[in-house]
């Protein structure tokens, strides 16, 4: 066992990157749930984003194009969910599950010819001077562009929900769709927009995984990250900054366990590999056990089907 081989600075730098896919997906799902829709298909949208981004990046040679394609593909899949649940009024839980199963199937079908290929590398954003700083340099100023984008999105979503008129309408739709409808706001339009936005972010998260972190395509490579993103939205009690905290907590655990595996610590590898899932469950339990606090910020119409009669 050699714990000394773990470099804390590199660990934190890796943590920020490892948390980004989940942070992106969780931010998207936060907006979706704030509009009153429960989309359990995050895992499916992420993996479709991962494969679509990978294919386009490999074929075009441009990682940026791949990332855009990932967002578009996952948004398209999310739109399918939106049409099913909002227009055809299907059960959101069942449709979300279906989206995940379908996404896993279609992604491994699409990715058939792309196993074992290396995608074009996307360079880190080395900020001049700043990235040479001793500790803050590698941690804060030489990350991949998606890391900065995810942080900007956290701030953007927080500001949008808190201080804009559209954000207020979105929250109103999520709190009471009947009242929002009676006031003349479009429940359908708001929710479809939120669902598509959530899909695009899940797709970005998937592309971050297949193009930057791994970077490779393997079947089922999201390995439950979509579900963890869902759990983190609950953990963050539907607040943007707490979701950020949750995502980094999870990222920290998964990076740490990988480092411990590499350092050869005397804990079975399987136990280390399951630790992120166990800790997510534990955190969920702690958050949910205080019923009043857990529900205080939950959208009241979450998961309920809206049908305007007349």
């Amino acid at each position, binding site marked *: 066992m050699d714990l000394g081989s773990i470099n804390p600075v590199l660990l934190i730098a890796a943590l920020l990157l490892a948390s980004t896919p989940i942070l992106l997906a969780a931010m998207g799902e936060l907006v979706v749930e704030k509009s009153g829709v429960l989309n*359990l298909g995050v895992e499916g949208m992420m993996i479709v984003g991962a494969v679509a981004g990978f294919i386009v990046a490999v074929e075009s040679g441009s990682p940026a194009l791949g990332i855009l394609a990932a967002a578009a593909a996952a948004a398209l899949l999310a739109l*399918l969910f939106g049409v*099913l649940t909002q227009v*055809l*009024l*299907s*059960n959101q*839980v*069942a*449709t979300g*599950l*279906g989206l995940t*199963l*379908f*996404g*896993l*199937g*279609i992604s*491994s*079908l699409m990715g*058939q010819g792309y196993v074992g290929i290396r995608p074009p590398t996307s360079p880190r954003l080395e900020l001049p001077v700043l990235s040479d700083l001793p500790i803050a340099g590698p941690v804060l100023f030489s990350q991949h562009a998606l890391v900065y984008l995810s942080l900007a999105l956290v701030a953007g979503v927080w500001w949008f929900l808190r201080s804009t008129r559209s954000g207020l309408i979105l929250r109103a739709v999520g709190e009471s769709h009947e009242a929002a409808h009676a006031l003349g706001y479009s429940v359908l339009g708001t929710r479809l927009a939120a669902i598509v936005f959530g899909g695009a972010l899940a797709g970005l998260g998937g592309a971050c995984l297949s193009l930057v972190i791994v970077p490779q395509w393997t*079947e089922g490579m999201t*390995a*439950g990250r979509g*579900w*963890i993103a*869902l*759990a983190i939205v*609950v953990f963050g009690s539907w607040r943007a900054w707490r979701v950020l905290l949750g995502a980094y907590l999870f990222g920290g655990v998964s990076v740490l366990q990988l480092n411990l595996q590499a350092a050869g610590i005397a804990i*079975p590898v*399987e*136990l280390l*590999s*399951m630790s992120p*899932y*166990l800790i*997510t*469950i534990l955190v*969920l*339990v702690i958050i*949910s*056990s205080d*019923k009043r606090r*857990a529900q205080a910020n939950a959208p009241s119409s979450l998961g309920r089907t809206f*049908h305007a*009669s007349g």
Partner: protein
Amino acid sequence: MIRLERRPAPSRAWAWATPLLAVLATMVAGGLLFAFLGKDPLLVIRTIFWDPVLGEFAFYYRGQLLVKAGPLILIAIGLSLGFRAGVWNIGAEGQYIMGAICGAAVGLAFYPMEARWLIFPMMVLAGGLGGFLWAMIPGILRTRFNTNEILVSLLLVYVAEQILAWMALGPLRSPDGAGFPGSRNLRHYDAAANHELIAGSGMHWGVVAAFVAVILSHVLLTRHILGFNIRLAGASPRAARFAGVSPGWLVLTCLGVSGALAGLAGLFEVAGPAGQINIDFNVGYGFTAIIVAFLGRLHPVGIMLAGFLMALTYIGGEAAQATLGVPAAAIQAFQGMLLFFLLALDVMTNYRVRVDVRARA
């Protein structure tokens, strides 16, 4: 202008017609998918849905049909009880794995004792208990701490997969396996094997259990107070509480039953068709069973029929893979598509489509 009008009660005719229409729509859309992959769509559809039952080599495939349908039906019956009551156990895959591990561990503990009358029943009990206990984790967390059972049961699948890998490489690894991962093959150990009951039919104890589960759940839902409470809680949770149904107790019952059935399915699979605990033991029956439950309208008889249909897509899919080179993943996408079409068409069951001819003033 087209609008939807809620039906006072779901249409019975549409409830049974939508699965059939969904299957047809999936065949059309799937055909397009296969055409896109450069295969002859009609030939692929025939290979998947026709040849395994009525084709030239059907005698070989028919046995496989029961082998694949057995676990799917057994798991889906359990899930359907919870889905009816609004209890979402989507971690059946994990309960299936834990049932298989517990059951196989009991069988292997007795190796090489010859006492089938004792060992096999104990394995069945251990399998059911393993799945039951694994499902009790989300159950108790939900009733004690109000934790979402969807997320916990699903996250536990990944935990169970890690335990499976650990067992296959560590405690349960065969001492005679020359270092390869995987336990002893239970099919070569007569006291613990879940052999075919009628040679060539594919009928084993797991399939028998699946049929028994279909009958018992039908009786439960139509004749027993528990079944009534489950249906009541699903239709109107508020009314159920007034009627004295304890929500917590219902959650534990639904999760417990579905977990135990998934565990049994895992045990019968590991002692029969699979033969051993190994890293790649689970093949997604726990997830496909969710589709089976919905396709069967959460009704026992419907689930049985849907289970056979899904088994057919597995077998036909393998055949299409071998003879036509259709990728295995295409079948998975095909199954997901089926669930989508079903959910989309279900709007007809609950709503009437009205076309207003007059423009509204």
